[in-house]
C-alpha cells in the first residue's frame, strides 16, 4: 500500500479521469494537483515526468521512494499502487 499518491491533472483531461477512477475503485485516496488552477506547478510536473503531459501520477511508497507514471498506463500504475 503506498504512503500517498498525487495526480497532476487538468480540467479537460479524460485520461486523468481514468487514473482517478482506477485508484478509487482500488480504495486508494489521492491528492489532485489541477494545473489549470495551479499553473505555477507545471514545472514541477514536468520535472517529475520529463514530459509536457497529464496525467502524471506520483506514487510515494512506504520507504519514501517514488514512482512516477506518465499518462494513463495501467500496466505501470497497477503494480505501483499494489
Amino acid at each position: 500500500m503506498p504512503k500517498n499518491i498525487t495526480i497532476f491533472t487538468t480540467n479537460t483531461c479524460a485520461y486523468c479521469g481514468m487514473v482517478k477512477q482506477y485508484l478509487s475503485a482500488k480504495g486508494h485516496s489521492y491528492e489532485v494537483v489541477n494545473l489549470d488552477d495551479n499553473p505555477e506547478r507545471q514545472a514541477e510536473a514536468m520535472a517529475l515526468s520529463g514530459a509536457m503531459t497529464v496525467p502524471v501520477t506520483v506514487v510515494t511508497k512506504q520507504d519514501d521512494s517514488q514512482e512516477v507514471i506518465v499518462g494513463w498506463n495501467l500496466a505501470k500504475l497497477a503494480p505501483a499502487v499494489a
Partner: protein
Amino acid sequence: MDEAHTNASGDDKHHDLIIVGAGPAALTAAIYTTREDIDTLLIERGVVGGLAAVTDKIDNYPGFPDGIEGLELSNNLRKQAERFGAVIELGEVMSITDEGEYKKLETTDGDMYAKAVLLATGSDYKKIGVPGEAEYYARGVHYCATCDGAFYRDKKLVVVGGGNSAVQESIFLTRFASHIDLLVRSTIKASDVLQQDLQKFVDEGKITVHLGTATDEIVGENNVVTKVVGIQDGKKVEFPTDGVFVFVGLMPNSQFLANSGVKLDKIGFVETDNRLETAVKGVYAAGDIRSGATMQIASAAGEGATAALMIREHLEGREHAMPN
C-alpha cells in the same frame, strides 16, 4: 483488470457477449444488450469514451443544441450503460480465437470466453512519420489537445492537419497559445461550420492557416522543440514554435486481430457484412474500427445499436439476412 464481473451463474470467464472497447459504439451496444439482459462485459485498455472523450467540443451529436464537451458525452454514455448493468473492466485483449460456440479472448487478466464478440476498439490518431516526431513525443509533440494544451500558455504552437479534428483542436488550443500556425498539406477538409469558426480566429490573428504545406521535420535544441520545417511550393519554410499538435487522420486499433480470422481491409479496418458481422461467425464490429465507417460519433452510436440487435439474434439462433 479492475473487478471481476460474473455472469448469472457466477462464472467470471464465460459471457454471452464481450465488447472490446468502450467508446460510443461499444457503450451504445451495451445499453441495448444489458437492457435485454444479455450478459455483457466491456474490456477497455484506454479511455472510456475513446477519441470522443479527448475531443474538446462535439457540436454534431444529435440532442445537444449547444454542443457538448466530449468528456461529458462520454461520461453520460458510460453512466447510461452502467445504469442497465454494463460492466467495464480495464485491461487489454491481445488475441481472439474462434473455438466454435465460444470465442476465446486472451486478455491481460487471463483467458475470457464469449458466445459473441463486438469489436469496437475504434482508432487512434496517426503519426506523420517525420524526423523529430518520435524523439520529442510528449516533450513538444502531442496528439491530445485536451490533455496537453495547458502546457502551452502564452506560447506559440504548430498544429498539423486540415480535417475536423485539426481545426477543432486548433480552436481549443487558442485558449492557451499566443498564436497557432496550422499546417495543411493540401486544403482544409473540415466541415463548413468548423471552417466558419476557424475564420473568426484567423481574423483575430490567433491562427494562421498555411495551405499546401507539408510537414517535413520537427527540430529542437537542448531537448526542446524550436521549429517545424515545412515544404511549400517545393521550398523549405520554417515555423518557429514551442510545440506541435498532430491531427492527420486515424489508424485502426486492430493489431490484436492478426491470426483471428477476422478479415481486415488493406489499411487494417475490419470488414463486415451488412449485419456488421465479420468473417468470423459471432464476431461483429461497429464504429471507427469498421471498414467504411464514417468516423462520426453519431454513426458509431447507430452502429453500436445495430450490432447489438444483430448479436441478440445470433445469441437467440434466429439470424436472418438483412435487405441490401
